[in-house]
């Protein structure tokens, strides 16, 4: 119960990134951030890290959010994934195809996204309890 929920937030817009960081921190999450898909992948592959939820932008340099989602789905199947996009429908559709749990369109209300995260994570723990 004492464990904080851990989220990884990925966006190539540094302002958005720090806003999200501050907000989730204040809402009692353990937060890490990455500026693109490759940076995120390196954090994910670091064994000392472990996340409950990934919140990622979609259009980014090197590894796109869609690419990151596909990799995470395969390597960390339990992690919940929220995709955010500000680029029309295409990337969002690809994120759903890559099985993001939820796709949100920018601009996104911070409280709404926190709500979404907490719902997703509680689903998760409900399931775990049933299985235990």
């Amino acid at each position: 119960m004492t464990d904080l929920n851990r989220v990884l937030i990925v966006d190539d817009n540094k302002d958005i990134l720090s806003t999200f960081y501050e907000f989730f921190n204040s809402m009692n999450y353990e937060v890490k951030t990455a500026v693109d898909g490759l940076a995120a992948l390196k954090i994910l592959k670091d064994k000392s890290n472990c996340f409950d939820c990934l919140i990622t932008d979609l259009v980014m340099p090197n590894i796109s959010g869609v690419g990151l989602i596909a990799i995470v789905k395969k390597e960390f199947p339990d992690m919940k994934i929220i995709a955010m996009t500000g680029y029309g429908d295409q990337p969002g559709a690809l994120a759903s195809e890559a099985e993001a749990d939820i796709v949100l369109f920018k601009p996104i209300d911070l409280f709404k996204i926190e709500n979404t995260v907490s719902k997703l994570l509680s689903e998760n723990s409900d399931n775990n309890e049933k299985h235990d």
Partner: protein
Amino acid sequence: MLKQKNENKTMTTPLIGVSKSILKIKELIHHVADTCLNVLITGETGVGKEVVAQCLYIESERSSKNFVKINCAALPETLLESELYGYEKGAFTGAHKNRSGKFQMADKGVLFLDEIGDMPLALQSKMLHVLQSGEFSPLGSEQEFKTDVWVIAATNHNLEDSMAQKRFREDLFYRLNIIKIEIPPLRKRKEDISPLIEYYLRLYKSEYPGNHGEKPGSDTLTKLINYPWPGNVRQLQNCIKKQMILKSWEKIFDELPKEEVKLSTSTKKGRKSKKTKTLPDTKNADTPASIISEFVDLSTSSEKLFEDISLKKIKKLASDKVEKEVIYFVLDKVGWNRSRASKILKVSYKTLLYKMHEFKVLPPV
């Protein structure tokens, strides 16, 4: 099939470079080589897009299968289609037997779509469909084949611009752009020039043991490092090869096209060439720079220059110039009878008057 594989094995070139961008690309290759996610590689001609594609393939689990390349700019539409998907006997006149396409040849391996930005729109739709469904059918065939290929695409176009001009499908772009590898031009990663020279000197020496290529002296090396290399690594390679024969780096440097140097290096402010207008040299009157210099002042700083250069503006200036000439020519022929001239030019009388006013076309006094 086997032949194709072997050919490629011997062709594989390591990605040489010590610049930040090349190191980052190497790291990226390492992290995504096993994901099999679609890749889009962008950069000017000769920067090493194919080298990067090969590195991805070599580091992947698919390296024991085929690496199949197709250049989407080199073939006319119908041929490109049959090359990609193959055809069935009787699909069109001349199709005497079944022929498999690149998609089949690349099965379980890599399909490298070079110059994807030049793919005709109709084939872009078909490509999108194949990437979405994972299935294709050869021309003239009803049968759908499952594909398992890793698609790596490359282009020297700015696809964002192509999309804005409706020459590239947005949905195809996003589907390919899952992993994006941008290779900067050589002039933006000058640290790589010296290691590239060293690598290729050694390689060519081992291929032609009789020849004595030598390293450039430090002065020449500095000049080579500061040259803007519009043809990127391929151009550098050619210089190194030539050097094996001419045995003089000085000569090689002197032979490099300098007109383009002036244009491209003006990115660096305060070049010596500041005051030298590119135009007056009549011998070069038709070089691109001299044509451009008719419409913009190339001798200004690059900031100002890049502000001044706009395709729309230049188009207007160029067409105005030609229109003015033509109007003058026709008016002169018909003794400045403006109504006759407007009929010949197929514009209204009013338009002609307007244009004469705009271009200050006046009868000789």
